[in-house]
């Protein structure tokens, strides 16, 4: 039950893009078409899950015992960068079909702050490994949902007439604002649900 609430919170209530403002660059940059946005989301899901599962034992197994918590940022970013490279090579060799779909997005993901953000968050929130896994998956799904919804709207706004000054970024940001407002409707859902389930 606890996990259901965790999932709903991460996808809807505390959506990583629309409520926490992480991953805005890919959100604005790779959201002109629905299927590109979807594949980007899948790539993030893939990397985020692996990154969280790899950094978690590093933090509790190496950094904490040796009192090196201050190295967290450096170690994490290096691990994530190395991981993305490795994933790219493995995919290229063994799963060319998947590579052709996700490949172009992988280099972008190193500097996608959602990955580092989630890896740091599971430490800050004191999640255990199972909770971290669920949290990372749900957050990535929330990212994908926001991407796909946003891309869907942008496909429409691209063919409508926009005032000159608002063309490009301003109208995209405005759309994102309305989407964020819609997502605010979910706030409190997690509390209501946990009350209803008697937690």
């Amino acid at each position: 039950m606890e996990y259901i609430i965790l999932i709903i919170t991460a996808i809807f209530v505390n959506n990583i893009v629309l409520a926490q403002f992480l991953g805005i660059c890919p959100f604005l940059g790779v959201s002109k078409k629905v299927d590109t946005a979807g594949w980007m989301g899948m790539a993030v899901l893939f990397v985020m899950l692996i990154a969280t599962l790899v950094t978690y034992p590093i933090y509790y197994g190496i950094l904490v015992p040796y009192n090196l918590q201050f190295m967290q940022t450096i170690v994490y970013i290096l691990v994530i960068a190395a991981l993305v490279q490795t994933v790219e090579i493995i995919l290229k060799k063994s799963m060319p079909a998947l590579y052709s779909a996700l490949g172009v997005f992988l280099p972008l993901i190193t500097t996608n702050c959602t990955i580092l953000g989630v890896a740091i968050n599971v430490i800050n929130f004191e999640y255990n490994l199972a909770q971290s896994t669920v949290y990372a998956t749900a957050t990535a799904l929330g990212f994908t949902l926001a991407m796909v919804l946003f891309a869907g709207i942008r496909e429409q706004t691209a063919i409508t007439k926009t005032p000159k000054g608002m063309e490009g970024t301003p109208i995209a940001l405005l759309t994102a604002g309305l989407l964020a407002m819609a997502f605010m409707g979910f706030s409190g859902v997690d509390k209501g649900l946990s009350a209803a389930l008697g937690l």
Partner: protein
Amino acid sequence: MSKLGIIINGIVKENPTFVLLLGMCPTLGTTSSALNGMSMGLATMAVLICANFVISCVKNLIPDKVHIPCYIVIIAGFVTIVQLLIKAYAPAVDEKLGLFIPLIVVNCIVLGRAESFAAKNGPLDSACDGIGIGIGFTLALTLLGLCRELLGAGTAFNMPVYPEQFGALTFVLAPGAFITLAYLSALFNKFIKK
């Protein structure tokens, strides 16, 4: 280009927020008030100046193929230093900015300037570029924070301007970040960019 020219270039012509559209996450995430936006801008500026200077000094010692990981390590080092200093001497700021301080590492502005400026110019010019871009970023964040605070809570830099009940809370919350930035960049397009 003179040193002053480099600084002004960073503030106006290559303004990281309104022109280059980089570093959107902290821009939206930390600007619920003018002071928060300003602290975030100053923290980023400190990292920008140090990282630009050091990277420019050591750029020839780094083989091309590993330059990105090396730059990232240097940047992450300065970010952690800034984070530790803020935690020690300004704990209130640390509470407000939270996760966004370590995330300066993946702020595309910092790596972007290292790649496009520090890797090609001398240490002093690079430091000036850091100052200019840093000021541009700080100004943009402060302005955005000021607008949101003023419209949402009726205060400017925590000083009451009009009664709070008349404020539209949305501007302090998530949607307000997107909407305010949308209109500010539209205005920037109209009057300054051309």
